[in-house]
């Protein structure tokens, strides 16, 4: 018996040991999680601040076409594909180099694919918000308003998808779960237009006209109406209005309206007019301080009367970091260099084109007496710009041999290839280095662009005087002299075709570097503006205090017909065979 009790005690000791190892916890709790610091879908929408944060993430989708890519922003890339600017990097792997040499094949570079994914990701975020916001603790009025904001954003993402790819799959309100598979094909272009317009029509009436304080920058009624105008302008434009480059009939209706209908211009015109009729937007004008100062200051103001929708940013030197000349930026800067084509498109201060013999243009002094917008958009040889060395306004020299900003061949990549640097939307007191930050936000739709849209729609519907009125408005603000006829340098009685050219040229300069040119050329079906054409630069030689000017060819650009629409990512069409690829890819 004694032996047994020994055994018993020994065994129990062992057992106690085992239990002690488990510690104070009960065995069934051993694997239980003790706390969590992580948010999931439920906890986010159970908290009003997290819910509003989530919506902030949907707003971030407005950054599309500007998201960082292989060379810091697709706007840089697409700009350099057109005749607006040259891209600094000559490397063959760059998307713009591939596009402008015609070797882009759709599968090699992921950038376009990333944009597709970026937009659909934000459409999903919008749908998640719409699904859960009713269960959140937000007030009823805030729920209503933020749902309208979200539906606008979703419509905006579709509008950008349509600009890129034509008709795309519409996902509705469904939030797909992890095991969903993608089925179904693309919706037709017409269905996409109808969907986006119906969404905008639904949210526009109740959206606020303006916001104040912390809410400034949210979606307004004006934004909804302006986006509607933009979508209808695209729908009326040659590429989409019965002008698809597709051969197959099923692809035709996916990429455009199958037939041409001139009345689409009338719808676009009415939509533009609706924004004007709100009466709350105006062109920021200040020709008293100095000519065109309103055009300059407008881009630097976080709060202004001209922006209808902007990508709101914190204090930044976002544009400066890519575009400032070496002397004003850091050593690896200057991504895009404006072309001579753009420089030549700016008229003289009297509004007359430089090839007009009465304009007063002097080829030996090409930067004298030009449209004030020129000076706020482009750094040319001798432009004054703040330099941190000496902390003063100093000239930027782009003549050949000037160090470090002088013109160099395309093969070098060491400085500008065209003799120009970009400065639009930048504060001349704030270079990339040594000048603090700007308050600039990036315009997505502004009253100036809307008036040009209106002008285009008016001209296409035959209302030439209405079109010219808009150009005069734009030029008046730009600081161009009215001239004796108060036509601001415009011809008196231009034909419809002439007016079209005037409008296109005005868009080119007024909206330079704002992300329009590439998409405008596509919707006008005007690839021949670029295709097989050289961009030009200005080779300037310094001789004592004198300069001589010589226009030089920089690079030949190619615009293949398939570039009118982007390729749908290869993996997408592999996974989903119903998703028809765009023509030529």
């Amino acid at each position: 018996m004694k032996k047994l009790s020994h055994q018993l005690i020994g065994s129990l000791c062992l057992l106690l040991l085992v239990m002690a190892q488990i510690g104070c916890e009960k065995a069934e709790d051993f694997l239980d999680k003790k706390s969590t610091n992580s948010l999931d879908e439920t906890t986010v929408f159970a908290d009003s601040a997290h819910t509003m944060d989530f919506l902030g993430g949907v707003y971030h989708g407005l950054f599309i076409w500007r998201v960082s890519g292989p060379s810091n922003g697709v706007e840089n890339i697409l700009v350099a594909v057109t005749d607006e600017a040259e891209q600094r990097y000559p490397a063959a792997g760059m998307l713009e180099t591939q596009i402008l040499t015609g070797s882009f094949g759709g599968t090699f570079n992921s950038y376009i694919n990333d944009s597709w994914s970026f937009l659909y990701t934000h459409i999903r975020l919008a749908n998640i918000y719409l699904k859960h916001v009713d269960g959140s603790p937000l007030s009823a009025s805030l729920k209503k308003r933020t749902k309208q904001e979200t539906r606008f954003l979703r419509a905006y993402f579709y509008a950008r998808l349509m600009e890129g790819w034509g008709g795309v799959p519409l996902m509705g309100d469904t939030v797909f779960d992890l095991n969903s598979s993608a089925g179904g094909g693309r919706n037709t272009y017409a269905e996409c237009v109808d969907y986006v317009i119906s969404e905008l029509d639904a949210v526009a009436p109740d959206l606020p006209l303006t916001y104040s304080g912390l809410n400034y920058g949210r979606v307004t009624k004006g934004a909804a109406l302006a986006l509607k105008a933009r979508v209808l302008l695209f729908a009326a434009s040659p590429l989409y209005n019965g002008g698809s480059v597709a051969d197959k009939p099923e692809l035709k209706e996916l990429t455009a309206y199958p037939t041409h209908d001139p009345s689409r211009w009338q719808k676009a015109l009415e939509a533009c007019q609706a924004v004007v009729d709100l009466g709350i937007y105006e062109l920021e004008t200040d020709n008293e301080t100095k000519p065109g100062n309103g055009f300059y200051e407008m881009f630097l103001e976080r709060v202004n009367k001209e922006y209808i929708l902007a990508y709101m940013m914190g204090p930044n030197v976002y544009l400066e970091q890519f575009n400032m000349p070496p002397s004003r930026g850091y050593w690896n800067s200057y991504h895009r260099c404006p072309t001579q084509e753009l420089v030549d498109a700016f008229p003289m201060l009297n509004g007359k084109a430089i090839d007009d013999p009465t304009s007063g243009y002097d080829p030996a002094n090409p930067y004298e007496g030009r449209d004030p917008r020129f000076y706020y958009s482009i750094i040319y040889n001798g432009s004054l710009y703040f330099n941190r060395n000496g902390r003063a306004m100093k000239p930027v020299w782009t003549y050949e041999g000037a160090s470090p900003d002088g013109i160099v061949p395309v093969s070098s990549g060491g400085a500008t290839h065209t003799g120009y640097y970009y400065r639009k939307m930048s504060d001349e007191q704030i270079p990339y280095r040594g000048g603090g930050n700007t308050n600039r936000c990036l315009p997505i739709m502004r009253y100036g662009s809307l008036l040009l849209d209106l002008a285009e729609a008016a001209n296409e519907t035959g209302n030439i005087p209405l079109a010219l009125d808009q150009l005069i408005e734009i030029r008046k603000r730009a600081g161009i002299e009215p001239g004796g006829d108060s036509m601001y340098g415009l011809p008196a009685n231009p034909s419809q075709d002439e007016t079209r050219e005037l409008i296109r040229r005005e868009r080119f300069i007024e909206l330079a570097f704002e992300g329009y040119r590439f998409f405008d050329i596509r919707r006008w079906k005007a690839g021949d503006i670029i295709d097989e054409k050289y961009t030009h630069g200005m080779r300037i030689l310094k001789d004592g205090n004198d300069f001589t000017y010589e226009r030089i060819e920089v690079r030949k650009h190619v615009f293949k017909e398939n570039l009118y629409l982007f390729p749908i990512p290869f993996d997408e069409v592999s996974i989903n065979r119903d998703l028809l690829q765009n023509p030529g890819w």
Partner: protein
Amino acid sequence: MIHAIKLPEGVSPESIRRDMPVLLLLMLLALLALPASSQAGTATRDSLPAGDSLKIYPILYQRQSPGNLVESIGHLKGKKLESTAATFINTGFSGRIAGLFTSQISGEPGNDGVNLRLRGLDPLILVDGVPRSLLSVNPEQIESVTVLKDALSTAMLGMRSMNGAVLITTRKGLHKTGFNLDVTAHTGTSSPLKLPEPLSAFDYATLYNEALGNDGKPAIYTQEDLNAYQSGNDPFGHPNVNWYDRVLEDHASFNRYVLNAEGSGKNLNYFVSLDYLNQQGLFSNSSLNTYSTNSEYQRYIFRSNVGVQINPTLSMYINLFGRIRDQNQPGSGTESIFNALSTTPFNAYPALNPDGSLGGNVNYNNNIYGQSVLSGYMNEVYSDGFVDLGLKKDLSALLEGWWVQGAISYNLALTQEIDRSKDFETFEMLLDPGTGDTTYNRFGTKSDQRNNSSILARSHQLYAAGSTGFSRNWGEHSLDALLMYNIDSYSIDSDLPNRYQTLAARLRYNIGNKYLLEAAASYSGNNRYEEGNRFGLFPAFGAAWNMHEEDFFPEDSWISALKIRASYGLTGNAVAGYYEYINRYGSASGYYFGTSVSRVSGRALQVPRDISTWEKAEKLNIGLDLSFAGKRGFISADYYRHTLKDLVQARGRSSAILGWGKDIIQNLGKDRYSGMELQAGWNDRSGDLSYYISGNMTMAGSEILFNDEPDYPYNWMYRTGHQVGQLFGYVADGFVGQAGEGMVMEGYQPVPGDIKYRDLNGDGVINQFDRQAIGTEKPLIFYGLDLGFSWKGFSLSVLVQGVANKNIMLTGARQWEFQNDGKGQAYQHHLDRWTLENTDATYPRLSVGTNISNHIASSFWVRPGDYLRIKNAEIAYTLQNSWLGQVGIKHVRLFVNGLNLVTISDLKRSDPETLAGTYPIQRIISGGLTVKF
């Protein structure tokens, strides 16, 4: 096929989980209530193996004699590791164990361990039965290494059974009463196996000009520059600095001192080991410093394993371990300097300017010499230690052969960093050719030496196990049963602990040593899975037949033993991450609302995951063991087929239009690993001469069974069906000829001398549709041959080890010219580049920066990674005489050994194991003596 095991009705996983300790308790009490047997049992000493013969191999939680093994294991005596002079004991595994593939990617002191792949997977390391990776220890403390390969040998590991395991068993003392003390002093020297061969400044500049020309750009070096580089008469303006020579020594020292004491008494056995190791790196020190900036590794180890027989039925063990590892490196970091070495041309800047300042310029402002000796130093100190404690009670008095045991292990580790680095400035000397005046441009900012201490990681682990077993013979039959419950809780930094909870059992049944049956199973859970979905059941079965024990087997056969064995089971692998079943929302890109800026952070799903279960493998193993000629020779062969499923991987067929933005991570993948392992050996003695030869060879293949790929238009694009990790790329087909003969590359305009690719689909354009599997697709082969002899006091051992059918891809800044936007280095192998005069070249035309057509994955860059090494050799002489005996010395052993002595490989430009420009693998020649008292 084992897909799911149904539990008996009424028994839910939750109930088992809840009731596990209670069940154990009831079971114990019930057994205790049995009447005590009148016979006193003989204590089995599984937990105190000091008394066991080394012929009995450790298996998981138990031991087994090799003749009765049903499981598939590999076994290596600890003694074999002692001839390898390295900081990690696994460096000594190479070539010694069938099925275990090793690869070494760095020779940095303290980081020179090898990566282990057991039958294609990353095995779990256990030391004395506790999951912990304790590989930087002195080899003297290792009794043996057992590699657990099949399902039967690992099934009791439950959630961690899939990848196989390496079981390290430490020495517990002498087998017989006595006392030994030995002291070893070991010293040696290490030197790099192979350093890159960069170009001289002249060659570099010449090729750079040529490359610029190829890219259509003007040359940047004038003829005067080239002349100056060639003559070397302008060392400041036209430097030609061999950076390897400048900052590296040819040799570095290796020193180790070990003291081991072991003994065994009536009720006590013990093993105590003290070890000090010091391995120096290759960097030159500078007399400017009062401290060392070399890469240096010092290690202090203390181990004490003690077993006590408290009374005839109660025994206890306590193992203590403490270790400090002190790793020094230059303030800039060892890896960063080796990267700079492989990416900085000889003409980049002079090491020192005429005024003694560090050279540099706008493109190269991080002077390598400065990095190596003028950047201070960084010190990382890893301290860890543990206590293992166990009690075992023999209950044979109650039931013959019954015992219970409890064990606990507490492990602590701390990593501290002491930052005594500093920044330096570099200067570019500018010479005014007119006046001869020099001015200096400064780059970088000088800083004071920092003196910061921070804790990089802090972890602790609690492991506890309670087990009971029963072992008994009835005539020819013997039964051995083991039931174990264990928990393992590992915490690091602020993470919630990662916990495993396992109930496991093993049953071994033996009929006359002829028929051996074994089953093992575990019911195991991991807390990182969602509640209700945390536990899995992992069963395995095996059987073996010792044919030589049969009556029909001829007594006088040349074959002394013949066994066939087979096992099959289901194993698992928890890969739940950090509670990754929760689809977590985190901060995302936000927005800046407000008339004045007011930031709103976004909230979005971080990574969409649907990880609901653990990875699983069904494992089949069939083996044959044969010994012959009076057991002097043996052959052993294994065939295995491991079918893995529910592997965590990104979904390939997830369309972006669903809006996930990223790949969805799910339990999707299916792979199969299969292969053959062969071992054979012979040992004999004749007179004073005894010798052995033993070899092993493994053929390890794999196949992707399911990879969730999109519907590709061409079959060659699929990875499914190929080996796991198969290289993919374009197929090189010579060079684009002088006439620029038609290759159209998407996104690129080829020029003569570019690599020409095969247009697989014949559409006239080279693009992603033209990529296929490249390199060999044969199963990997690796092998080792260990041979040696001893004669009187002399002994010799040699280990040859090799690999075949391995692909390597020569990519990156150490293989390609002028990388990093043209700032990179170029090498000797670039001299034979394509030019108009040299179209029969081994390297394409040169370009500056990354060439998007040439510098991409293609068969051009694939080489066989095959090699054969004399990995390890040792010559020793043992002196043993009466004179020594009189002064109390049992023997003195003198030895010389070498690691990585000779390598044979087709790859001339670098070592086949280290390609990436990291710290080169070392050849270590060392010698020493052991005095045994």
